């Protein structure tokens, strides 16, 4: 890796050593050893990862997962082989706003996530054992992804075209839940926020957007918030669900 990482801001980029790549169906779990200065952050925050030896010209936003015995992240298998195989990668972060977990508990908080958004829930599962998760996956070979999300109580995962919104509506009708924490594509986030608003339940949603920088410089990651276009990396990625409905 070039000498540029000898110079870093207080959030990096710092080197991380790739310790191994494990297949997760059509995805891959990349285990890394972070530099001691890199913090994982709170669930919902993200890091920008780059590999000067890889194909990607830009960094990519990734949610780090705390695992037994280390830290990792999930990417598709092709990316893992071509861009994140190491031996070292550069890590900038943690960035963005994570979940406000001050009101979170396993009895009255419900998790809803789909796709890579599921990785965001791993940290919450470690803090709040047996918290209920409604999971959605784009395809069945992504099922092994759920092995990374420990601590949660999983419903049977919904595989597209089945939607997570159906079991969400049923769960909220029980009256048990006062808060929903969601993560996934903007369409899912908006649907969850709408359903929660209809049931008088608070929601926080971790949004996804393509990013070039992750720290507010490029203005590329805008999402529809408050009735306008705002930067996902600065306003979010975790936002109050009501802001998606404005």
């Amino acid at each position, binding site marked *: 890796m*070039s*000498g*540029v*990482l*000898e*110079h*870093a*801001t*207080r*959030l990096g*980029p710092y080197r991380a050593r790739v310790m191994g790549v494990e297949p997760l169906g059509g995805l891959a779990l990349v285990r890394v050893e972070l530099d001691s200065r890199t913090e994982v952050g709170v669930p919902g925050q993200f890091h*920008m990862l*780059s590999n000067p030896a890889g194909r*990607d*010209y*830009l*960094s990519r936003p990734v949610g780090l997962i705390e695992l037994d015995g280390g830290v990792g992240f999930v990417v598709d298998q092709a990316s893992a082989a071509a861009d994140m195989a190491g031996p070292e990668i*550069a890590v*900038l972060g943690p*960035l963005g706003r994570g979940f406000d977990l001050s009101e979170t508990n396993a009895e009255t908080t419900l998790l809803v996530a789909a796709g890579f958004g599921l990785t965001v829930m791993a940290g919450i599962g470690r803090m709040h054992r047996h918290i209920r998760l409604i999971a959605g996956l784009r395809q069945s070979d992504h099922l092994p992804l759920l092995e990374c999300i420990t601590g949660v109580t999983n419903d049977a995962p919904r595989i597209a075209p089945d939607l997570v919104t159906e079991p969400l509506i049923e769960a909220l009708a029980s009256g048990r839940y006062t808060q929903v924490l969601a993560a996934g594509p903007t369409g899912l986030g908006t649907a969850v926020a709408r359903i929660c608003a209809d049931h008088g339940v608070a929601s926080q949603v971790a949004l996804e*957007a*393509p*990013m*070039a*920088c992750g*720290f*507010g*410089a*490029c*203005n*590329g*990651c*805008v*999402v*529809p918030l408050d009735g*306008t*276009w705002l930067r996902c990396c*600065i306003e979010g990625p975790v936002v109050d669900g009501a802001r998606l409905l404005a």
Partner: protein
Amino acid sequence: MSITVGRLALAQPLLNGSGTWDAEQAHRLFGEANPGLAGFVTKTITPEPRVGNPAPRIAPARQGLLNSIGLPGPGREAFLATLLPHLRTIVDGPIICSVGGFSLADYVDTVAALDDDPACAAIELNVSCPNVESGCASIGGDAGETERLTAAARRATTKPLFVKLSASVADIAVIAMAAEAGGADALVCVNTVKATAVDRRSGKSWFGGGGGGLSGASIRPVALHAVVACREATQLDIVGLGGVECADDVRDLVAAGASAVALGTALFRNPALACAITADLAS
């Protein structure tokens, strides 16, 4: 290694390209508004507030980045009242204010307002943004319009006046000479190159706002050509910009004729890149 570019003194030759850095957010996140940079070039200030283009705004390219951002910003009034005073408290070095608009009056009114503000050290006329519906690139694509605008701005300010050019023109040397004739102090070469990504299903632009510009390593030879052409055509100082990633890229642009060099897309991967390049240049 202090230098002067277009009557503006800089402690060293590295700047950011307009639109590629947010000093306010950098200060909040990193504790430094412009790490390793000799000053700060603002995002382009337009007369009215602008939301910018709808998503999607970016797309990856081989060895580059495509963007269609659309000049989002608070507008002139809020910039002068709130943002510029704040920037002056956090930025290390001079602040160069990038000015854009959709008519000659848009530019001149903002230039005149900035002329009264001591927080603004120099003014850069953005006549080359490819991602807005009118103005900007259509001015910078025409030598007569460029000269008229530069001359009008020149009458409105005594501050150093830079003109940021596009390589997406028939002959950048002709536009550079027009800026010189209008009274510019320096040229900035170059803005993103007109480019796009397509939606395969519709055949239309991938971007929510249409348009598009290419930046990053893939345009480095384009920037070098632009600097050489402008150096040969004018006597103006030049800020070289386009795909700079390392000290050798800086050396190439300086050898081509640039007095100062700006970083852009590469800052997205490493916000401390200017510190690394400065160290390499000194070694």
